[in-house]
């Protein structure tokens, strides 16, 4: 009698155990996504930075001099204001972190929807080995907190925080000339 009860209970136990195995096991946490970058190069690889604002007809070009300082690409090779430029600008342009990847290999109509067929900002990066990266920045996201950015040589689209855009745009709208020495 007791043995029979134990066997019945054991059967129930195994049924419950089976149900737990199938339905109840805590699901493993998804692996933490590594930080995604829209593109990524070493800061030291940047040789030339060209930023264009096609809608406003403005652009600016910066080149890395032999003195390892950044200059405007003008006849005088005017140096940039080191306080504004610092190490931050090359770092921002070596690869902005993506808020999220919106589309992989987006079709043309989606690119148009994101404002990437007629980008509001174009960035052309030339690397020390001569490789060129052509990046397009499209519309603001509806929330106004980020911009759509198309990765170089692909139709992948990601969003990048608005602060990144603002800093880069300012390089064209308010070029970082060295302040004139006060007399």
């Amino acid at each position: 009698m007791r043995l029979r009860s134990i066997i019945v209970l054991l059967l129930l136990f195994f049924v419950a155990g089976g149900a737990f195995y199938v339905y109840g096991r805590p699901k493993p946490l998804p692996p933490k996504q590594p930080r995604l970058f829209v593109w990524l190069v070493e800061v030291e690889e940047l040789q030339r930075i060209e930023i264009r604002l096609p809608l406003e007809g403005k652009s600016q070009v910066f080149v890395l001099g032999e003195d390892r300082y950044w200059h405007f690409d003008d006849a005088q090779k005017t140096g940039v204001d080191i306080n504004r430029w610092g190490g931050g600008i090359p770092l921002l342009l070596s690869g902005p972190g993506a808020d999220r990847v919106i589309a992989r290999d987006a079709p043309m109509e989606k690119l148009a929807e994101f404002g990437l067929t007629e980008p509001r900002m174009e960035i052309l990066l030339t690397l020390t080995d001569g490789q060129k990266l052509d990046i397009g920045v499209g519309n603001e996201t509806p929330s106004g907190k980020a911009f759509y950015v198309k990765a170089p040589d692909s139709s992948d689209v990601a969003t990048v925080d608005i602060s990144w855009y603002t800093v880069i745009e300012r390089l064209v709208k308010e070029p970082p000339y060295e302040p004139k020495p006060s007399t």
Partner: protein
Amino acid sequence: MQSSSSSYFSRLLAGLGVAASLSGLIVMLLLPGIRLAAWGVLALGVALLTVAFVLDFRNVTRAVTGRRGLFGAGTGVMAAIFIGIIILVNAVSITNYKRFDITSLGQFTLTSKTKEVLAELDRPVEVQFFFGVASEIDLTLRSYAESLLNEYKNFSDKLTVRFIDTDEQPELARQNEVSTYSTSVFKSGDLRRVVFPWQLVVLNNQGQVSAIEAENAFTSAILEVTGKVQKRVYFLTGHGEAGIFSNASNGYNNARKGLQDNLFQVGTLDLAVNPRVPDDMVALIIVGPRDPLTSNEFDILKRYLADGGWMMLMLNPNSPENFRQIVEDWGVRTEEGIVIDEQSFVSPNKDFPLVTRTRFAPFMAVAEAYFPGATAIFQKDDAPENLEITPLAYTTLESWLEKDLDPKSEPVFTEGADIKGALALGVLIAVNLPEEADEGFKDTRLIVFGDSDFASNQHFFDGNNGDVFLKAVNLLTTGKELISIERKVLPFRRMLVTREQVNFITYSSVAVLPLLVLFAGAVIWWRRR
């Protein structure tokens, strides 16, 4: 002699082993910070038990393999398996469960109002929920809205719901003028209504999200896009009235939410700021004013009633004189004093008269409610004949209006000073419809309560107090050509018990089960003896 002392020693070791093992387990559970030491104590306990087992091997073996030992082991195995089954079933149910709402009006799913609105949908309604993934609140709102809107879909096949990734579909977001994550757009035909995320969240005093409540906003939006207009009631402010957004015990936050759950729109009216009655006002509610009206405000309210307005006035004892004057024009008066009911009250407060079903007007259909510190409403001898004055709730014959209540002593009826019950605690005043009423007939309706506390936050969910308030508002506003209000009111039920009943519930719930187990044990022991 040697065997006896050895047995005693091994028992001592076993006892210490058990104590150490239990202590180790308890410390491990309660003080995880010193878990290492707990493991040490546990190991010591196990070692002591092992030594006791080795020292008294013969006795232990005999005890285990004997009849009692086998019996006990069998019972232990069964108990262990049973506990294992319970643990496994609980572990499975944590992630796999199904909810059933068996309350009469489905209080834990959608309100009856929402279900009725959905059941009556006669045209397609599309809901677009534009979600974001930027923050935790966006994810929470999406999950909440998904669950709620799927629940909505269960009650109408006219409703379609789309969840749209705002960033992936910016064009659609722009077309719908959506610029904030977690925005919902309701559409039906040419009508469109946007519900913003801040309409879904409830903030606490620190400005943090304390709750999410989307049902009112969603159902209101459905009503609006299907061309139905919700009734809007206003609460008068500026005279020390209870605040409809106040969470204080005397506030009316719960009452406001109750009205919104019953699909009223709720606003406030400060006649000092805007000295006119809003066009969209269906009824005006005045809750426990403490300061008098200005003469201009007084004139506005008198004119509002005279022009066929609908008003609910909840007066406490010692209310300002001109508020009392307003009701006197409509055939009733209030007296100074507090209602005492010796026969029916919320123990131990005799000034909390408890009104049960038979002492409510039949159309109120309320089981019981109480009115803390109320005054009474009396019909005037010279009340106009064209008025129909109906008591909504009244006290027992053993009640009176105490004119001089001393809180330190037991209230006693004083002949000649106090007024004997039964006393009306609330009345409905309506103008009798003449046989040949023309379109200009002034259908004035006035509900006067001698108390405002019964529907305050502190008492709203007690008994059927909230029910009384909501039904009174429904009663007041029946008939306006807006949405139908002949609906079931969302009930709030809480059992009202006396101190003796509280004691019985407490002791019986604590003691009955253990006593039953003891009794069963005693019976089994007796039978096996």
